[in-house]
């Protein structure tokens, strides 16, 4: 089982550049500022989108695309900050540009008006799970003093378990964000087996996946079980 309209594809090869790991917090700063500025606009758009969804029963398509791009961008920035991926991300949230990518539906789906109206209250249980998922991930994956930071600095590689822990935190947070911002009506799933695909290049299937979210579920069979001991990773890991 791997079906969730919001899916994280992790195509990272675990290699880490010591230089960018050492300065990762500082390299994050321009992205952090851009993320904040974009986030302010997203907040306004989200309120408008909520009103639209209440009236017509589904989010507005331009708002959906805008918020989806923001969520993709957010994912790449936090994947970079939490050492879940190595390269410096772009600033546009363009699909197919990063080894850790969120596939989100860009076409609005019909959503229950009652659930839309009470969306913020429905999100309350996810806050508890967010803490459970995020705190260990932050302790282990954040730069400077965490285990993962030291491991990457010493070995030039990210331990896979740490990477997957960070990726799962990002996946769940992105699903919460997507649900809160009405990108999807599907409730976030706390199971790490749902909505995360390890070792699957999203680049090749970007167009279809993004345009038709259902296609995102059509991942190669080998990658359907992220918990499998050695799901196919990038060549350098073998």
């Amino acid at each position, binding site marked *: 089982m791997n079906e969730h309209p919001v899916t994280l594809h992790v195509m990272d090869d675990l290699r880490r*550049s010591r230089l*960018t790991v050492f300065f990762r*917090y*500082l390299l994050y700063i*321009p992205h952090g500022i851009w993320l904040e500025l974009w986030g302010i606009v997203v907040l306004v758009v989200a309120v408008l989108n909520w009103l639209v969804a209440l009236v017509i029963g589904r989010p507005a398509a331009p708002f959906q695309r805008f918020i989806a791009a923001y969520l993709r961008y957010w994912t790449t920035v936090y994947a970079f900050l939490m050492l879940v991926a190595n390269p*410096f991300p*772009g*600033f546009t949230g363009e699909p197919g540009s990063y080894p850790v990518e969120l596939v989100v539906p860009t076409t609005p789906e019909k959503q229950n008006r009652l659930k839309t109206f009470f969306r913020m209250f429905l999100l309350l249980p996810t806050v508890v799970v967010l803490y459970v998922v995020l705190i260990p991930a932050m302790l282990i994956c954040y730069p400077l003093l965490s285990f993962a930071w030291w491991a990457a600095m010493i070995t030039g590689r990210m331990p896979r378990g740490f990477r997957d822990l960070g990726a799962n935190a990002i996946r769940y947070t992105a699903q919460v964000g997507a649900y809160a911002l009405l990108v999807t009506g599907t409730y976030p799933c706390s199971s790490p087996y749902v909505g995360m695909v390890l070792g699957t290049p999203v680049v090749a299937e970007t167009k279809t996946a993004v345009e038709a979210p259902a296609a995102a579920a059509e991942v190669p069979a080998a990658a359907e079980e992220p918990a499998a001991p050695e799901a196919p990773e990038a060549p350098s890991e073998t």
Partner: protein
Amino acid sequence: MTKSSRRLLGLLIFGALAVAWVYAASRLWQTSVPSNLKLPKVDMRALVGSGELHRAEHFSLVLDLFGLAGLFLPLVVLALYATWGHRFMRESAAGPIGTGMLLAMLGIAILWMAMLPSSIGELWWLRRYGVVKYGYAEMVIGTWAALGAEFLGICLIILIVMGFARLLGKHWWLAGAPVFVGIALLVTFVQPYMAGLQPVEGHATLVQAEKRLAKKEGVGNIPLKEENVSSLTTAPNAEAMGLGPSRRIGLWSTILDGRFSEPQLEVVVAHELAHHKHNDLWKGIGWYALFVFPIAYLIARVTRRRGGMAVPLAVPLFLFAWVGLATITLPIDNAFSRRLEAEADWTALQTTRDPQAAKALFVNFVQTTNEDPNPPFWDPLLFGSHPTEEQRIGMVEAWQARSGG
């Protein structure tokens, strides 16, 4: 239009611009200090004492060596980075501008690492003479954190340069240079609001004197403020800052700690007011504008061999060219700054008419900063934004001679 007439037109435009440049530079270069002013030889040994003088010479010589390292090591590091830096492009999944930002930030990060031993050595020397108060760990962590601001600054510069280069191609410098001048204006304007200035407490006489001196210099109401730096350094300093409504005079808390008498502080305040009177901050921006155009043009020329500033491949070379050209223009920038400072000294003398206080102030500067009052010729050339203390005392004596004092 034929090729030769185009060439002629180009030469004419270049000639006209060169004439305008020289005219503007000569206007900015002029000061109110009498051009025939001869500075007498000053016996610093008699004023400061040979022990203190020797200490200052020793302190300054070693500090200069660290200064030289700080000046030339970046050139070596960035030259190497210009050659090898493009390899870091593989660490980026961003577009051209994002990748350019990453390369620029990594260049600065590598520079920071390369400079760290020299910075630690310099700190050891400053601590030895009691000039700074913070420790090694504070310095390393502080400069590491300060890199964040530098990263932001360089990202903004890369965004402007590469953004215009992608829009205008090799002519990006024509649009980029005015934007940099605009940023310099903005930074100068907002600086007083960012400096954490506080009201001057416990110096009511000085605050009153500042009002009197401001009136005398005809600069209107300029607030006198204090900058608390006592936890960082013992070095005294003061600065004129801001433009128009943001104009302020900031006195470091270290100059108000009792080591300087009220008449000496009045000379300091009169000096800073003189900067505002002569519009020196505007002049500084004008001077920067004069240089930023040719420097941006030269950078555009140099980086063409790497495909121009539209591609990230050129960014490491951009850093090297930028720092290299800034180093080349450093002596002329310092000379310009020294002229403005000399004029402010002269105006302060005219305003306070207290040469004894001025002389005591400059002697006090030698004693409190440990700076060599008469350094070797290359020192002011490379590091001297102010006249040497010997020159400043010489000016006081020349002023006295002229005023019949």
